[in-house]
């Protein structure tokens, strides 16, 4: 009720509802929120009522460190909603956070980027959760398109460009020309799979169990996708499986490279498949200009080098790859503000 009135007091938002991080871009204000997509839930031990204890960075600090009455949830998995109610609550929290005015509950127009590999049911869940969080209107645009726009690729040109968005849950590759997606492919491999691979590798080779945050730290510090002469090391503590006590040990970048081989090859094969499926004219354009890398995965050391060696094409990492999707969505919002019909060129549904 009164959504229209409340809408007058709300700003249009572009939301990158990612598996790992949620970013919000406010039209005319830039990126205003960049928080992990984590929610901490408190369960009342007597009544059994579940309430939200923390959202975002605060909840992420609790990850893997919670007592029995607290649990941390990552409501998104593989780029889509795994827990509808918690996602809705999280979005509601974030939308309120970016609106400083408290008098009205905000009811903004929201543009959400969704993985192009998502099913209709998954997209509907995203739309419903955004509406449930108070959005007045929800626009859905494909994530690779938003990433390409955010990276600054001239998508409206009659020229093919390939964009590879490596996110937390999915990696999406798309060939874009004339504001449209010519080919899109997605693999459910992303930052989470890298962490998982590191955890498995450490358990298997060192007999030590480490948590998700530790695996993420290893990935950020010494993770690399291509062997180099420079070898970096990191000291890690985990629980030794055989002895059952915490142990400290050292990992180096070559070991991590080995651990990441499997997920990385999955991404490479997705790119190769995309290149195979690209129409020849567009393939020539891609060969001429190269592939653009976006998303958090693009920050992994030498991932561009790996793709360059594997595909034989030039690979370019976009400026500030983490925020590309949200910024791209923001630019589409600005276009919509000028002419409502502009969304028809990008919208999925």
């Amino acid at each position, binding site marked *: 009720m009164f959504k229209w009135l409340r809408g007058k007091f709300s700003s249009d938002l572009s939301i990158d509802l990612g598996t790992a991080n949620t970013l919000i871009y406010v039209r005319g204000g830039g990126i205003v929120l960049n928080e992990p997509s984590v929610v901490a839930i408190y369960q009342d031990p007597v009544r059994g009522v579940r309430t939200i204890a923390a959202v975002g960075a605060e909840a992420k600090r609790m990850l893997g460190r919670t007592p029995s009455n607290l649990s941390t949830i990552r409501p998104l998995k593989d780029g889509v909603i795994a827990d509808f109610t918690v996602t809705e609550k999280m979005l509601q929290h974030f939308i309120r956070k970016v609106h400083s005015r408290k008098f009205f509950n905000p009811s903004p127009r929201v543009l959400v980027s969704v993985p192009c590999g998502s099913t209709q049911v998954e997209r509907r869940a995203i739309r419903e959760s955004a509406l449930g969080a108070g959005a007045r209107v929800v626009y859905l645009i494909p994530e690779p398109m938003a990433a390409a726009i955010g990276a600054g*690729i001239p998508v409206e040109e009659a020229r093919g460009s390939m964009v590879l968005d490596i996110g937390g849950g999915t990696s999406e590759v798309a060939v874009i020309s004339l504001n449209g997606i010519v080919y899109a492919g997605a693999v459910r491999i992303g930052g989470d799979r890298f962490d998982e691979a590191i955890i498995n590798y450490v358990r298997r080779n060192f007999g030590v169990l480490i948590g998700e945050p530790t695996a993420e730290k290893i990935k950020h510090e010494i993770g690399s996708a291509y062997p180099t002469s420079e070898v970096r090391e990191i000291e890690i503590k985990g629980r030794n499986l055989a002895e059952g006590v915490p142990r400290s040990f050292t990992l180096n970048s070559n070991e991590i490279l080995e651990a990441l081989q499997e997920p990385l090859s999955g991404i490479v094969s997705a790119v190769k498949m995309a290149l195979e499926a690209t129409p020849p004219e567009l393939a020539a354009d891609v060969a001429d200009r190269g592939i*653009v890398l976006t998303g958090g995965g693009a920050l992994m050391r030498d991932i561009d080098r790996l793709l360059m060696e594997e595909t034989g094409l030039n690979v370019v990492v976009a400026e500030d790859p983490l925020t590309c999707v949200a910024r791209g969505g923001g630019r589409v919002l600005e276009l919509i503000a000028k002419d409502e019909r502009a969304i028809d060129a990008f919208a999925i549904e």
Partner: protein
Amino acid sequence: MSMHTTPITAAFTPPPGVIGAYPESLGAWLAEVRASNGLELREVARQLRLNPTIIQAIEADDFARLGASVFVRGYLSRYAQLLELPETEVLDRYRQQLNDTQAPTLKVVLPIQRQTRVRDLRGLLYLLVLGGIGWAAVEHLDDLNPSRLTALWTGKPQNSSQTMAAPTTAASQVQYPFQTQPSEASSEPLTPNQAPPAAEPAPSPSLPDPDLAPAIAVWQPPVSTPEPAPILAVSGVGTAPAAPTLSVNNTSPDSEAGAKLLLEFSNDCWVEVKDAQGNILASGMMRANTARTLSGATPFKVTLGNAPAARIIFDDRLVDTTVYVPRRGTVSRFTLDRGDQP
């Protein structure tokens, strides 16, 4: 010779904060470093997996030819890595040289819609609606006349009072004879109400006969029914002779409108007279020693502010003061009608 060059290069430092203050442009700088490393342009292009023309364009500072800045940044950073130059510095110099760091404006090719035609039709529709309203207003301008509107407003209550009044008049049989002037009365066209009843009980002319029971009976009751009857049935006592002929006339509707009312005032008096349709025939203050003649369809609904000052002649017959002068006060409301006898 080397004595000259070494101190200069060693001493040279870019001014603090200004990166673009190098002697040469970015392209020239890159070309120079490449040459000093002994690398061929083709070899660089092969290692960077780029077209040699792109390397040429970079070295000629022809960045506009290379398209979007996202690609140029990628080429430059890779080139810088190859030449082992500081990547950030190369990119900063590129940004300075580019001047505009704005991302290219997003353009959307909207499908061509036949919007104009629809808009034209909409305009036509508005015009039609406006025209219709205007036409209706002109057609019904008369209906919007204020006096008619007030008549419509006040008409209903009046009619209802009249319908209420008629039976009472008939039931009470209260009749007030008027001073008749037979000659004039016969010449006057009479109302239909009056004639048919008059024909029956008045076979003889104007003189009060013993036979004329109604008339005489009427003559006494003013004492027995002293109430200032607000409703008056004007009996057509003296109209009998004319009755047979008039009964024909009675059917014509215009005789209805022929009733005449003369009001004379010996003092100031406020008057309002309405005819059968509720039209206001007179309304306002009448001065002392003035008279007003009105004509219209009976019955008249009369309101007098100062009833004792008035003298009423209805259809050339003087109306008895007992009819309209109230016992208390001066304001009087009554209806004047030609006698409808049972």
